[in-house]
């Protein structure tokens, strides 16, 4: 799975730490998600969607081997 969380973060001018505090996780978790090392839960994805004000499908994309 790929994601464009970094782009969405840049649009809102948020640091990883700012975003982490908004959704109640650690900065390292945001970093792991952005680097595709960790796939977040549905709950976390929906929280991100609420912060970015865009649907989950807009910043998470399935890859062909998923």
């Amino acid at each position, binding site marked *: 799975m790929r994601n464009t969380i970094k782009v969405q973060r840049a649009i809102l001018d948020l640091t990883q730490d700012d975003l982490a505090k908004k959704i109640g996780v650690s900065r390292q*978790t945001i970093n792991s998600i952005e680097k595709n*090392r*960790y796939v977040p839960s549905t709950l976390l994805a929906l929280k991100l969607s609420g912060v970015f004000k865009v649907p989950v499908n807009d910043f998470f994309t399935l890859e062909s081997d998923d």
Partner: protein
Amino acid sequence: MDTKKIMECEHQRLKKYENMSLPAQYKKIGIAVTIISFIGLFVLGYIDNEPEILRDLIKKSILVGLLIISISKDSIEDELTIKLRGKSYAMAFVFGVVYALVQPYITYFLSFLFNKKNNEDFLELGDFQLLFFMLIIQIMFYWMLKKYR
């Protein structure tokens, strides 16, 4: 009684054990207990005719200290740390089983290597060493998984 109500009741009971953990502040207490116990064990080595029960108590306090460290939450506990913690427990369990299987052969080899006539020192590798090993492995793996997440 309604079957659904019984199942709901059982589910609620099990949920209590799912999040069995201590607040983050307890980690420092666990570290302190472990270090003090190690120092105590070290000092005990220089005392002659110490009561056996004292050694046992100190060993148990080491295990208690490590357990407190193991089940203490992080300052920021989120779904990733919970997942990593679960992985570290699984690894510790597997490594513990392998260690328990292999350890008797290591014991024999060590007693042969050091030419011990009295093998009691090496045979005295029971539950303490296994539990200590598993707790150390869990703490170590959790730290490593967090570092490279």
